[in-house]
C-alpha cells in the first residue's frame, strides 16, 4: 500500500504490445514507460495509430486475443499487476482500476436500468453490504453531478441524454472506488457544451488525491484545462512527457511542437495560419531502427543518427523528458517552417450564389397516426451564400445543420420554402439544385468513396454523369485535379483502401472540384481526420478557393475550425438560426446566450488560459426538451428565459450585419461580460 501519500501511483516499465494480423505482426507499443504519481491527472495524447488506446487497454488487461503483451513491470500502489494473467487482472479490474470508454451508449447495457448496472459492480467487488447498495448508487450518481439520483437510477440508458449516459458510465467506473481511472476519449462523442461539463467533472473527481486519472485523447485543447502532465505518443512510443504548462509553452520534441501548431484555437485571430505535418505514421509492420518520427521531422531531416539510433530519453528543463537526439536544435526552427499556406483573405460583399428562404423540413411518420412523432429538423430558416464566401453553420448535434445542407444539395426535399440560385447574374428559383452547381464533401472519406472503383473513376464520375463517355476519356482532367489537390498522378490507378485518410479526403475534394461548381458544401469534412491531416486539408481548401473563387458552406461542430476558415457564421439551435454575423464579430462579441455558451465551452490549447478562465454552463434536464412552434427554442436551457420567451418567438433581422434571434439581446451581452453565479471557475 502506498500509505498516506494518496492512491493511484502507477508505474509502467518497458511495456510492449504486438498484434498478429494474418501472418504479419503489428507493433502497437514499444518499450513504453510511465510514472503516474498518486492523485495525478495525466493526459496521453497522440494521433490514431499512435498506440494510446492500446496502452489503456493493456494496463486494464482488455487487449484483444491476437495480441502479445510483455512488460518489465506494471505496479499500482506498490502491488505488481500480472499483465499477462487474465484471471488476476479480472480481480483488480473495476476494483483498483476502472475504465470509461468513448461511447457510453455502447458500454451500457440497454435492457437494464442505470441503478442495477452500478450495483452490479458494487456486488461483484463487495464494496458495501447489500443493504447499503441502494444508498451507495444514489451517492455515486450524486458524485457525478446527476440531480434526482433516485429517479435516474430507475431509468434505462436510452432515456438519458449523451452527457447523462457518460456521467452514469463514470459513476459505474467509480463504484469500485478505484485508485486508477482510465478515460479513453470520454468526450469525443459528445457535443461541445456537454463535453465541457464532463471534463470539468473528471477534473474535479481527479483532484481528491485518492485516485489518479489517465485521460486518453487526441484533443490537445481539452488536455490544457484538465491535466497536470502530458504524455505524447507516436508510433507506439512515448516521445515526450512533462508538466502540462512546460509541454505547451516549450515542447521539446519536434512532433509535439508540430502538433501544437496544427490545432486551430478559438482564441486566435482569423489571420493566423494553420500548421500541418507532412507525411503519415510509419508502417507498424516494419519498425525502423532509428527515431520513428524521423521521416516527417524538420530537425532530423535524414541525419544518420536519427535514421539508425533510437533516441534515449533526455531530461528537459522545466520538467519531463523527450526522446530526441537534438532537442536543443528545435528552437532554431522557426514556427513558420512548421506551418504551411495562407488561410485567410478579405472579401468585399458579393452577389449571392444561393439564397434559401423559409426552409422547413420535418421527419417522421405522417398519415395514419396524424402528426404524431414528427420532428422538425429545420424550422423556417433563411440562408444566403455569396460568391467566393465561406459560410460556417455551427450548432450541437440535432440542431438541423446537416439537414439544412442536405436540403440545399437535394438529398432531402424540403416541406416548404424556396431555393434560388444565381443563373447569369440573376437569382432564379429551382426545384432541385443542378448537379454541377454545387458539390458535397462528406465527413468520412472512407464511406464516400466507392471502395471498388479506382481513384480516376471516382474523380471522373461526375464528369461521366454530366457529359457521358467512359472514365478513361477524362484522364487529363483527372490528372490536373489530382495535381491541384496535391496528389501524384500515379494515384489515379489506386483504390481508396490503399490511401490514408488525408489522401482519401483529397480525392473526395478533387471529385467535388471536377465539375467546377460554384458552391462546395463541406459537412464536417475534417472531423474524421487526424490532427496533422486536418491542417493540410483546411489549408488546401482555402488555397483552392483563392484559385477558383467558389463559395464554401462548412458544417461543423468545431468552433475553433470555423473561426479559422469562415467569413460568416450561422449558429443554429433546434432547427432555427439563432445568430448570424461575420466570423470576427461573432466570436469577439457573441450576443445570443446559446452562442455565448457554445463559445465559452470550447477549450483553448493553452493551460494558462484554461486554468484561469470562466465557463458558462447551460441548464440541462433529463432527456431532450421538445419545443413547440411558439416561443424561443432555447428557452428551456437559457439562463435569461422569461415569460415572454415562452409565448413569443424571437425573430431574426436578416438585413442586419449581426443578426440575433433573442428578446433580451442587450441583457445577454451585458451578463456575458459580467461574472455571474452560473459560471464556474
Amino acid at each position: 500500500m502506498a500509505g498516506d501519500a494518496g492512491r493511484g501511483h502507477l508505474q509502467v516499465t518497458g511495456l510492449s504490445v504486438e498484434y498478429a494480423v494474418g501472418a504479419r505482426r503489428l507493433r502497437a507499443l514499444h518499450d513504453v514507460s510511465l510514472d503516474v504519481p498518486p492523485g495525478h491527472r495525466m493526459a496521453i495524447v497522440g494521433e490514431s495509430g499512435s498506440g494510446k488506446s492500446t496502452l489503456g487497454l493493456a494496463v486494464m488487461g482488455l487487449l484483444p486475443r491476437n495480441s502479445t503483451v510483455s512488460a518489465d513491470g506494471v505496479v499500482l500502489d506498490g502491488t505488481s499487476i500480472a499483465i499477462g494473467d487474465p484471471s488476476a487482472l479480472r480481480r483488480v479490474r473495476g476494483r483498483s482500476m476502472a475504465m470509461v470508454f468513448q461511447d457510453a451508449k455502447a458500454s451500457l447495457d440497454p435492457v437494464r436500468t442505470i441503478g442495477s448496472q452500478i450495483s452490479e459492480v458494487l456486488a461483484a467487488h463487495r464494496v458495501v453490504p447489500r443493504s447499503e447498495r441502494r444508498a451507495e448508487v444514489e451517492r455515486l450518481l450524486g458524485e457525478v453531478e446527476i440531480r434526482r439520483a433516485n429517479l435516474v437510477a430507475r431509468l434505462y440508458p436510452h432515456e438519458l441524454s449523451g452527457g447523462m449516459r457518460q456521467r452514469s458510465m463514470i459513476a459505474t467506473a467509480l463504484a469500485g472506488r478505484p485508485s486508477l481511472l482510465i478515460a479513453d476519449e470520454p468526450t469525443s462523442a459528445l457535443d461541445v457544451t456537454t463535453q465541457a461539463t464532463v471534463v470539468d467533472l473528471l477534473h474535479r473527481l481527479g483532484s481528491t488525491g485518492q485516485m489518479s486519472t489517465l485521460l486518453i485523447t487526441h484533443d490537445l485543447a481539452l488536455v490544457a484545462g484538465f491535466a497536470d502532465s502530458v504524455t505524447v505518443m507516436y508510433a507506439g512510443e512515448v516521445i515526450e512527457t512533462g508538466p502540462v504548462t512546460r509541454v505547451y509553452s516549450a515542447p521539446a520534441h519536434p512532433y509535439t511542437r508540430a502538433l501544437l501548431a496544427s490545432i486551430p484555437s478559438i482564441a486566435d485571430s482569423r489571420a493566423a495560419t494553420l500548421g500541418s505535418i507532412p507525411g503519415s505514421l510509419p508502417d507498424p509492420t516494419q519498425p525502423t531502427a532509428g527515431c520513428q518520427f524521423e521521416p516527417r521531422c524538420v530537425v532530423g531531416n535524414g541525419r544518420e543518427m536519427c535514421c539508425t539510433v533510437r533516441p534515449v530519453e533526455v531530461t528537459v528543463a522545466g520538467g519531463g523528458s523527450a526522446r530526441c537526439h537534438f532537442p536543443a536544435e528545435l528552437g532554431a526552427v522557426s514556427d513558420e517552417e512548421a506551418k504551411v499556406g495562407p488561410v485567410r483573405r478579405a472579401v468585399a460583399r458579393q452577389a449571392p450564389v444561393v439564397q434559401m428562404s423559409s426552409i422547413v423540413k420535418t421527419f417522421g411518420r405522417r398519415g395514419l397516426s396524424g402528426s404524431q412523432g414528427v420532428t422538425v429538423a429545420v424550422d423556417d430558416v433563411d440562408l444566403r451564400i455569396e460568391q467566393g464566401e465561406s459560410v460556417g453553420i455551427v450548432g450541437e448535434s440535432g440542431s438541423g445543420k446537416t439537414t439544412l445542407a442536405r436540403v440545399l444539395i437535394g438529398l432531402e426535399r424540403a416541406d416548404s420554402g424556396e431555393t434560388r440560385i444565381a443563373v447569369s447574374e440573376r437569382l432564379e428559383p429551382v426545384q432541385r439544385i443542378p448537379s454541377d452547381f454545387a458539390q458535397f464533401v462528406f465527413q468520412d472519406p472512407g464511406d464516400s468513396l466507392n471502395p471498388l472503383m479506382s481513384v480516376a473513376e471516382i474523380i471522373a464520375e461526375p464528369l461521366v454523369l454530366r457529359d457521358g463517355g467512359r472514365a478513361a476519356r477524362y484522364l487529363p482532367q483527372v490528372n490536373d485535379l489530382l495535381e491541384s489537390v496535391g496528389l501524384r498522378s500515379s494515384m489515379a490507378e489506386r483504390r481508396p483502401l490503399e490511401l490514408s485518410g488525408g489522401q482519401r479526403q483529397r480525392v473526395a475534394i478533387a471529385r467535388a472540384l471536377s465539375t467546377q461548381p460554384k458552391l462546395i458544401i463541406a459537412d464536417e469534412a475534417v472531423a474524421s481526420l487526424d490532427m496533422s491531416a486536418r491542417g493540410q486539408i483546411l489549408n488546401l481548401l482555402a488555397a483552392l478557393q483563392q484559385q477558383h473563387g467558389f463559395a464554401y458552406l462548412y458544417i461543423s461542430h468545431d468552433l475553433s475550425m470555423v473561426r479559422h476558415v469562415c467569413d460568416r457564421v450561422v449558429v443554429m439551435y433546434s432547427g432555427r438560426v439563432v445568430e448570424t454575423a461575420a466570423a470576427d464579430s461573432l466570436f469577439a462579441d457573441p450576443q445570443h446566450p446559446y452562442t455565448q455558451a457554445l463559445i465559452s465551452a470550447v477549450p483553448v490549447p493553452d493551460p494558462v488560459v484554461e486554468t484561469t478562465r470562466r465557463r458558462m454552463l447551460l441548464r440541462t434536464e433529463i432527456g431532450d426538451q421538445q419545443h413547440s412552434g411558439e416561443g424561443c427554442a432555447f428557452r428551456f436551457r437559457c439562463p435569461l428565459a422569461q415569460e415572454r420567451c415562452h409565448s413569443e418567438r424571437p425573430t431574426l433581422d436578416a438585413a442586419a450585419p449581426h443578426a440575433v434571434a433573442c428578446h433580451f439581446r442587450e441583457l445577454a451581452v451585458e451578463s456575458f461580460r459580467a461574472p455571474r453565479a452560473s459560471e464556474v471557475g
Partner: protein
Amino acid sequence: MTGDVAVAGRASFRSAWSWVRSQPTPLVIGVVILIPFLLMAAFPGLLAPHDPFKIEAIPLQPPSGSYLLGTDEVGRDLLSRCIYAARNDLLVSIASAAVAFTLGVALGLFSGYVGRRTDTILMRLVDVLLSFPTIVLALFLITIFGRSMWVQILAIALVMMPSTARFSRGEGLVLRGRGYVEASRISGGSRRHILVRHVLPNAMPTLLVAASVLASSAVLIAASLSYLGLGAQPPEPSWGNMLRSAYGVVFDAPLYGIGPGVCISLVAGAYILIGEGLRRKFRTDRNVGTLGNTVGGV
C-alpha cells in the same frame, strides 16, 4: 528453342501452382471436390465403367471388384448410374441457383434501394411466396406444368427466389445510405447508374456467399424432388431417385444408398466451401492490395 519453351512451361506451371497456393483453402478444397463431378457431368460415357441402362448382373449385389458400388434392384451398375446422374443434378442445381440469384438479387436490391412504398409492396409479395413450404410449392408447380427438367429448374428457382430477394434487400437498404451512393446522387447519377455501378458491385461479396448457399440447397431440393418422383424419370438416373429405390430395399442391400448419398453431400458441401472461399478471397485480396501498393507504390 524447345528448351526455352520447356523452361517457360515449367515456370508458368510453378507460377500457376503458387497462385493456387495463395488462394483461400476452402475455395481450393471446394473446387477440387467439384471438378470430378463436373467431369462426370461433361463426359459420363468416358468415365462410367458400364452402361447405366443395361441390366448387367444379379440385382442387389454388394460392392465388388467389377461393380464398385454394387448393382441396383434390376442389376444395373450403381457406379455408372451415379456418374450419369451427375449431369442432371449439377445442371438443375446450378441453373436453378443462377435463375433464383439473378431474379432475387435484382428484385431485392431494387426494392431495398428505392425503399418507401415500392419496397413495401414488393416485399409483401415476396412474403406471400415465402409463406409456402418450399417443397409444397415446387410440387404444385411441377404437378401443373409437367415433369420436364426445365420446369424443375424454374420451380426450384421460384422457391428459392424470395429468400434471396429478402437477403439482397437488406444489402440494398444498407448501401443506400452509404456516402458514395449519396455522392453519386448529388452528381446526378440515375437510379440505374447507382444500382449497377455502386450498389451491385459492393453487395457482391456478401451476395456470393448467398449464391453458394443457394446452389447447395438447390442440390438438396432437386434430390428431394426426384426422391418424391418428380425429378428425372426412370430409367434416367438421378441421385434422388436412386436414394428412393435404395430406401425400398434397405434391408436387402444396405450399401445401395451410399453412392448417391455421398454424391449429394459432396456437391452440396463443395458449393458451401466455394462460397466461403470466395468471401475470404474478397477480403484478403484487399489486404494484399493495400500492402503491395504501400511497399512498391511509393
